[in-house]
């Protein structure tokens, strides 16, 4: 079977080239935008082959059970079925995992979460596959669930994995561990399990190849980490597992772990046919990791003047059944656990635990989101104890460039925390427009017509947040870019190739902008991301503009040096300080020396560059000290809410954000990140939670798991600061995650301000506001 790497096989034409104009700092249109508005962009679920089969996954109905038998006889009898596979059919290690390979491809003798994959079916129609799946007989012996993370760490519960139930414990200690203070506030906080709820379901197409290998087209966040895991599970070398990115319908962390990757390849290799897998929404809730629910205990001590003296905290993150990204999430929550504040004396203990709840891993802002809810709630509590304004108490403690983090790391680039807070504070407040004619759409409860402004109270709340950007704690973090410059049709043209994953954020546009700016070439096309080039690292940790942007920039410089060498050979020794602008080679004096087209002639300049950010270090295992993070990103939010105090319903009226991004590479795309991130925080504050009881997911649908609609989402004015980070390409600061961190806490703070309720849990439910939750 031939396998055309490079394009997702579909029935519609597609190309990922673009000719929009615009360099760094402009907002040119996305190169994939026209295809997307026409409905012609090829997403992973659009992959199609006339000969293809459909794959489905049988999943565990129990959170924790021993598998005593699996009988596939009846399933195999269903006409139209080509394969029914269990763990016995996995040729490799039958294990996968992002940081530790501890998760079976298909369960062997025990299932550790509700929805764990047990068997696979391939058939000629998705319904045939589903029917066959229901005929697989699995004998289970149900075991008691381990549902509580804190108990899993400290309690007398059975070990779910050989090393016990602690995935990772990080202790960060700094300064005087016995410090005392004039004013002390304590609190216990909880954060619920949030879902990424990307709209494009997990999906892809695997095609068996003549060389015994497989070609996979899939939506993911990191092609090479998928490839590694597929190789381990299938027992194949990397050259036999070729992965091409198919269109990604959002990610937000939920595509970092494997979903269909190994399963679809297994079925394709077994049947010798292309196999398509597409989860429906319910399966998607079982098929990816979620945001870690957390319990956080905090104690803040401050002087009478409101200066923080110490922060002590214990944080428990529920990692669920397998490791996933939990170690990194624990590292973030621990190292960012006091927030963007100066505190000399810190004690933080953070644990990630194994339970039999759904596995939790990456979601936008991970670790930082959970900690921010607790430390920001504490700052409000402190303000109240001191009789100070919540903004004022934050301003008195705001960190800045040169501040020392609890890890001992000195922050060596701008940290305009106070300025960001002042920006949102100084915005005029939205008017309270509930006059004579009530617009129900603007009311808590909306068009359900639950109030005409009776019992509606307004509140304003503030929050700050901090996030580490790029991979941390000594990880060898790099990206790779290949550029080819040549004359095509009488014009200079650049082709960019990386394995970096575009999930919607607009990296493809920024790659083009960088090339236009650096090489003065208008025509820039992008090859599809695949594993024929070295890794770009994951689209995670707000790192791709920094890392793949950095790699493209470095590759541009390598290409430029070659162009200048060609120019020297043709034109003789030339003055230094050359640049490439508008298709010309320009001298430092501004004079045009030559046309790029003439200098290039028939040459193809082809450069591949691997690029790294400056190294970080591991945390000291005893004290949590170390130069752990490459860069910090900051945002501030002010939320204005109307609350129907009788029904406990909330309408967010406005959500203002201020963020420092170092450099706005593409202002329009940046606004999209800030608006989208802020909205996900709003969702976590008031509506989004996967309900888990006894390890079972109770609401795996968009009917019962609610994400904000356009009616739930308010106007979101934004201020952007551009204070360059001298260590980063263009001075930029990763921008995707910070807006998702402070928005939720700001909304909850506003509800507190409106109602006077303590609200120690996020999301806030109506019964928390009405006080009827006991």
């Amino acid at each position, binding site marked *: 079977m031939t396998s055309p790497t490079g394009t997702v096989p579909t029935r519609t034409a597609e190309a990922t080239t673009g000719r929009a104009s615009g360099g760094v700092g402009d907002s040119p249109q996305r190169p994939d935008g026209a295809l997307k508005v026409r*409905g012609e962009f090829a997403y992973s679920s659009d992959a199609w082959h006339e000969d293809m089969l459909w794959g489905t996954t049988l999943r565990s109905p129990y959170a924790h059970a021993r598998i005593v038998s699996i009988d596939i006889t009846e399933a195999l009898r269903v006409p139209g079925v080509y394969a029914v596979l269990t763990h016995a059919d996995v040729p490799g290690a039958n294990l996968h995992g992002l940081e530790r390979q501890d998760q079976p491809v298909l369960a062997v003798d025990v299932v550790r979460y509700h929805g764990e994959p047990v068997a696979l079916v391939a058939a000629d129609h998705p319904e045939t596959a589903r029917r066959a799946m229901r005929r697989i007989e699995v004998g289970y012996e149900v075991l008691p669930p381990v549902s509580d993370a804190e108990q899993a760490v400290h309690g007398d519960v059975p070990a779910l994995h050989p090393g016990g139930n602690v995935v990772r414990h990080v202790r960060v200690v700094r300064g005087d561990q016995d410090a005392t203070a004039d004013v002390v506030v304590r609190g216990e906080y909880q954060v619920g399990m949030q879902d990424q709820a990307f709209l*494009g379901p997990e999906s892809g197409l695997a095609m068996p190849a003549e060389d015994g290998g497989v070609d996979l087209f899939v939506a993911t966040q990191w092609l090479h980490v998928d490839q590694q895991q597929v190789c381990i599970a299938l027992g194949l070398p990397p050259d036999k597992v070729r992965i091409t990115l198919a269109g990604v319908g*959002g990610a937000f962390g939920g595509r970092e772990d494997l979903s269909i990757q190994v399963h679809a390849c297994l079925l394709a290799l077994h049947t010798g046919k292309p196999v398509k897998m597409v989860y429906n929404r319910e399966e998607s809730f079982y098929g990816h990791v979620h945001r870690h629910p957390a319990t956080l205990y905090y104690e803040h001590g401050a002087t009478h003047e409101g200066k923080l003296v110490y922060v002590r905290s214990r944080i428990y993150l529920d990692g669920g059944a397998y490791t996933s990204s939990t170690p990194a999430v624990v590292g973030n929550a621990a190292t960012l656990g006091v927030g963007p504040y100066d505190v000399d004396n810190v004690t933080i203990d953070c644990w990630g635990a194994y339970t039999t709840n759904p596995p939790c891993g990456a979601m936008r802002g991970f670790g930082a989101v959970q900690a921010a809810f607790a430390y920001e709630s504490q700052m409000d509590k402190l303000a109240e104890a001191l009789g100070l304004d919540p903004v004022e108490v934050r301003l008195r403690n705001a960190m800045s460039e040169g501040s020392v983090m609890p890890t001992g790391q000195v922050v060596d680039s701008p940290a305009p925390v106070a300025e960001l807070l002042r920006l949102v504070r100084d915005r005029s407040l939205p008017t309270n427009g509930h006059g004579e004619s009530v617009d129900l759409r603007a009311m808590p409860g909306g068009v359900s017509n639950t109030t005409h402004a009776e019992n509606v109270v307004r509140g304003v709340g503030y929050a700050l947040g901090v996030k580490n950007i790029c991979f941390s704690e000594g990880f060898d973090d790099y990206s790779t870019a290949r550029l080819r410059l040549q004359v095509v049709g009488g014009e200079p043209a650049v082709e960019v190739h990386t394995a970096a994953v575009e999930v919607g954020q607009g990296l493809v546009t920024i790659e083009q902008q960088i090339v236009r700016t650096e090489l003065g070439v208008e025509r820039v096309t992008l090859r599809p991301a695949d594993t024929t080039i070295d890794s770009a690292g994951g689209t995670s940790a707000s790192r791709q503009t920094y890392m793949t942007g950095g790699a493209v920039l470095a590759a541009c410089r390598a290409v430029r040096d070659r162009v200048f060498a060609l120019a020297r050979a043709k034109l003789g020794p030339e003055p230094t300080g050359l640049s490439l602008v508008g298709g010309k080679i320009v001298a430092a004096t501004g004079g045009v020396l030559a046309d790029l087209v003439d200098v290039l002639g028939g040459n193809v300049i082809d450069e591949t560059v691997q690029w790294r950010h400056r190294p970080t270090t591991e945390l000291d295992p005893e004290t949590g000290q170390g130069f752990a993070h490459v860069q910090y990103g900051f945002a501030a939010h002010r939320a204005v809410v109307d609350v129907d105090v009788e029904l406990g319903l909330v309408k967010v009226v406005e959500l203002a954000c201020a963020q420092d991004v170092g450099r706005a590479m593409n202002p329009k795309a940046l606004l*999209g990140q800030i608006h989208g991130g802020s909205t996900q925080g709003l969702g976590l504050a008031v509506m989004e939670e996967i309900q888990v009881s006894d390890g079972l997911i109770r609401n795996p649908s968009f*009917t019962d798991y609610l994400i904000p609609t*356009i009616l739930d989402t308010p106007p*979101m004015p934004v201020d952007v600061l551009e204070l360059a980070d001298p260590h980063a390409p263009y001075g930029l600061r990763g921008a995707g995650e910070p807006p998702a961190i402070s928005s939720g806490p700001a909304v909850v703070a506003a509800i507190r301000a409106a109602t006077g309720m303590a609200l120690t849990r996020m999301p806030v439910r109506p019964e928390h506001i009405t006080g009827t939750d006991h």
Partner: protein
Amino acid sequence: MRLNLTVNGEPRQADDVWEGESLLFLLRERLGLPGSKNACEQGECGSCTVYLDGTPVCSCLVAAGQAEGRAVRTVEGLAEEGDLDRVQRAFLEAGAVQCGFCTPGLIVAAHDLLARVPDPSDGEIREALAGNLCRCTGYEAILDAVRTAARR
């Protein structure tokens, strides 16, 4: 079963359609029109919105057989002679497209709104698009796009 229907102005036929298939599946998997999206397949997200005899519907909730003899218009059928419709152009220019998975459904819904209400208020836009989920944009750029399209 065999189905006959009109899609984007063309007569189309499909054979061996299983009775349980949705109109969305028919379009995406049998007629080569994957532009309508499958974000939930339970009527909650609007990503599969198409016109059925001129009325917008969630095609995941319509049985394929119900489209027999009827006219369907999908996002692929909005551009005239290759020129983008004003709503498509406005989405592109406003930055209302990130991952774009919500985009086809939102464009059909906005197209329908502007056909009914030429100059909608923000409240009317929000109400008309409340059945279309977007996880990426926070909707600000989408509102902008619809306002811009209305002005054209």
